């Protein structure tokens, strides 16, 4: 669905964010795009959706060149940005104005998502809503648009605790094998159960891009009491709960991926992890 080949990009030519980056993202997955602050997550999303143009290399989204902003491509992409822009319209007017641009927009689905988010009245002016409520309206619209590619930049920022679990449920329900959802986030705990493919960016390049199944096939995530973690662990992290350890999964044992620990482990020992996933 998304094919990036040898991409180079920087806001200034001397300071490139990406150098020769190659990445493929397929349908049927909820991709988690992770990286430190300034790693280029939002920039990559903008390159995929066509609001930024690469210096070198190719980006292809459903076979289109995003920089051309072809309406056939745009009607199949919804970008939910971190900084929301919502015009001074009521919710129902917003839908009336923007839904016709998306041929697969489902009005019933939009209403039911709003209901689930406990937004009762569609006559409310969007700009008078709280930040969290605005986000809920945008999330509802983005999912009801039923685009093949849904890009969400920090979608859980500003959502209250119940809304975060509602969000997970709603996204899981709206997900189909034909869709590709990319979620860029720092709040990995909020989306832990949702993401099934992880892409981690660092220093101009992709450090890791694998499915959760593939990761847990190669890595074992285990908790130990303090002092009991094996010495050959790739990474250990102490907390009140004990010691979280990441080990090579020689025995193909089953474990539950902890994205936050994986992220920390990767940055503590990047070369080792790269080598491990090359095999």
């Amino acid at each position, binding site marked *: 669905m998304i094919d990036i080949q040898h991409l180079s990009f920087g806001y200034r030519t001397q300071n490139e964010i990406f150098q020769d980056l190659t990445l493929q993202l397929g349908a049927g997955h909820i991709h988690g795009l992770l990286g430190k602050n300034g790693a280029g997550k939002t920039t990559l999303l*903008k390159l995929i*959706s*066509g*609001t*930024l*143009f690469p210096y070198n290399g190719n980006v292809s989204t459903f076979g289109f060149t995003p920089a051309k*902003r*072809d*309406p*056939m491509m*745009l*009607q199949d*992409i*919804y*970008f939910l*940005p971190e*900084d*929301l*822009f919502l*015009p*001074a*319209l009521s919710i129902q*007017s917003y839908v*009336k*104005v*923007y839904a*016709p*641009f*998306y041929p697969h927009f489902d009005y019933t689905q939009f209403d039911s998502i709003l209901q689930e988010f406990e937004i009762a009245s569609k006559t409310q002016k969007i700009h008078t809503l709280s930040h969290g409520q605005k986000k809920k309206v945008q999330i509802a619209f983005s999912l009801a648009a039923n685009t093949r590619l849904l890009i969400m930049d920090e979608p859980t920022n500003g959502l209250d605790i119940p809304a975060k679990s509602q969000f997970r449920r709603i996204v899981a329900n709206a997900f189909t094998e034909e869709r590709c959802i990319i979620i860029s986030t720092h709040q990995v705990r909020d989306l832990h159960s949702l993401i099934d493919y992880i892409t981690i960016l660092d220093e101009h390049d992709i450090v890791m891009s694998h499915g959760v199944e593939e990761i847990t096939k190669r890595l074992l995530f285990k908790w130990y009491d303090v002092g009991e973690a094996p010495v050959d662990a790739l990474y250990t992290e102490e907390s009140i709960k004990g010691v979280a350890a990441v080990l090579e999964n020689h025995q193909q044992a089953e474990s539950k991926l902890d994205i936050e620990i994986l992220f920390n482990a990767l940055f503590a020992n990047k070369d080792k992890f790269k080598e491990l996933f090359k095999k």
Partner: protein
Amino acid sequence: MNHFFSFYRIKQLAIRYLAERGRRDLIIIAAYFIAFAFLPRLGGGNPSDASTSSLFTLILILGGMRFTARIFHEIHQPASGMHFLHIPASRLEKFLLNGVLTLLFYPVVCLLLYYGGTLFGNLIAPVVPSFLNYPVIDVSSIIPAAYLKKMIPQYLICQATFFAGSLFFKKHPTTKTLILFTSFFLAVGVIQLIVIKFLWGDIDPMQNGAIVINSIDLFQAIESSSLLTGIKYISIAFVTAFFWFVAYFKFKEKQV
């Protein structure tokens, strides 16, 4: 064809424009209506054809500059720019709609408001004591075809320049384009002075007067000669087309 141009999408973009900016435009429309209805009759002077036409010129050109210079305002802000560029319509459709809004919608609405406002002024004049002296303005005669013919090229150049300005300047596009526009004509004036000085040396007041008379003659010559008029219109068309092309390529390359 559907990839680049669809009347359906243009219609949707127009609906979006009216929904989001309609209320603001309505306030401006009301202000223009009131201005056309009352201003020509205020101050006790005769609301002559000339004064009404100059108010129309002022609103058409100055208001048009402001309206056109802000037409792409939203693409310069990161959040609204992202929002606008992601709307599923082609670059050509978005560009064309804004072009039509500034090139046709604004002047036509101005013209309608002018006639509407003046008629409304005529209608209420008998009941407003201060209007009793000059109650009726002949709407049909005050904007003759010749006046409109003169105004159209002026508006075309202004529209094209400020349209490009709205894409090039993130902040204060009206002022910045106006400064550039003025600077350009000042530069042309300075070049003319240099040429004159080079050709005739220092100029005394008598010579200066002669140059002014000559330039008046030149304007008259342009008006009366079909060749010179043709050159004038070709130059206007060239400048207008140039700014339209520049604006389109700037819009195509816009990144947020």
